């Protein structure tokens, strides 16, 4: 049954990608891209990558789609007909595709336990991580402990991207420039329901943040889900009212604090006499030290991702509202 679901979902995914090529209405392209992300998340789930499915569903489908829609509101939704002939790209793509298909024939068969990928580092993670780190979720142990330095790099990349977007677009801080009642003000039912479910979303984000050690989830996903709650608030009630709740300046502080918390854990373990990000030094018992370390750095990741994603959204949304005023 799992194989059948895999076949069917991949076929639907290929169809969606094919349809996106021929659509000229960019609004529809972005909506189909949302479907594409959802489908690929279901495929990840079916291939046992629970955490990846979680991230793709929240980050890929949610944030990218919202940002693309915001861009379309600024750039217009019609793609003009291209004047180039599409012959040359088609030939290039077909030749490259044929070469790659030829290359796949040398790949190990799908799902074989004797594949080279499963021989080298993975057995250690699978067999030892419960003893060494003490968390049931191997993905979290590898992410936060074994490859903690790598994850620090990723968090810095997210932080840098937020700085990049803010320096390119900037958030309008003058309150007068924003209209008092933007957002979907005609939709009364939406106002009531949004007020009802936003607390539920934040609650769920906290659950994901702190349950990530035992089930799917963790800082990246929790940060995005918490940001999604405020994005929903902005979409329904307008940017001006959201600025009262979470101001852009506060977010800038939060984003840096998250990275600093992460890096400080590393420095603290060095101070205790271990290597950078060596959590065993954080407490007398190595396992307890690992637990403290992972909880704190996941919190740092969550705070940074939340602040970075929300400020990126603020930047786009303030552009949209400004262009709407003019």
């Amino acid at each position, binding site marked *: 049954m799992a194989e059948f679901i895999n076949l069917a979902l991949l076929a639907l*995914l290929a169809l969606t990608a094919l349809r996106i090529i021929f659509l000229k209405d960019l609004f529809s*392209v972005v909506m189909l891209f949302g479907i594409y992300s959802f489908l690929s998340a279901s495929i990840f789930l079916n291939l046992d990558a*629970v955490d990846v499915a979680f991230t793709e569903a929240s980050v890929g489908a949610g*944030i990218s789609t919202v940002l693309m829609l915001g861009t379309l509101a600024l750039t217009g939704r019609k793609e003009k007909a291209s004047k180039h002939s599409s012959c040359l790209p088609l030939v290039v*793509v077909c030749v490259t595709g044929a070469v790659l298909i030829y290359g796949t024939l040398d790949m190990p068969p799908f*799902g074989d336990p004797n594949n080279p990928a499963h021989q080298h580092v993975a057995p250690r993670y699978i067999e030892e991580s419960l003893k060494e780190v003490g968390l049931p979720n191997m993905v979290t142990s590898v*992410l936060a402990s074994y490859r903690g330095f790598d994850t620090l790099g990723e968090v810095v990349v997210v932080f840098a991207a937020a700085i990049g*977007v803010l320096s390119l677009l900037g958030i309008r801080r003058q309150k007068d420039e924003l209209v008092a009642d933007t957002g979907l003000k005609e939709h009364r039912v939406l106002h009531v329901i949004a007020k009802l479910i936003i607390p539920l979303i934040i609650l769920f984000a906290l659950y994901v943040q702190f349950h990530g050690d035992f089930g799917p989830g963790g800082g990246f996903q929790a940060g995005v889900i918490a940001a999604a709650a405020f994005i929903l608030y902005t979409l329904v009630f307008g940017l001006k009212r959201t600025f009262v709740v979470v101001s852009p300046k506060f977010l800038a502080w939060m984003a840096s604090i998250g990275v600093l918390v992460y890096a400080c854990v590393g420095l603290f373990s060095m101070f205790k006499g271990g290597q950078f990000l060596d959590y065993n030094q954080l407490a007398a018992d190595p396992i307890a030290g690992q637990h403290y370390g992972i909880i704190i750095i996941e919190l740092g990741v969550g705070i940074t991702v939340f602040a970075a994603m929300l400020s990126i959204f603020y930047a*786009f949304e303030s552009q949209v509202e400004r262009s709407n005023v003019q």
Partner: protein
Amino acid sequence: MSFVLDYYNYWVVVFLMMTGFYIVISANNLVKKIVGLNIFQTSVFMLYITVGKVSGGTAPIVTEGVSLYSNPLPHVLILTAIVVGVATTALGLSLVVRIKRAYGTVEENEFENKDDAI
């Protein structure tokens, strides 16, 4: 049949990758190009996760009574790659917005002409 099942995932990955590639090189509109880039990117994610799957295995979260788990390493790599991917997408989209403001268009051939005029 088992030959097809063994390689089906890889073929779909190649197809998606080429679809994304085609959109990137043939589309005229910058937003559509970014959508193409994202499709390309997702196909790479799919390749990694396909490699990490073990038949009969289950998700790499320790539970009682399960001994065969899928490979957790590709999952970690892709999890962070997705978040970074969104960060780069956001940066690309903000560049598109700036291009629209500077040139008044996001169609590739149109602002190329304007560049010549300047």
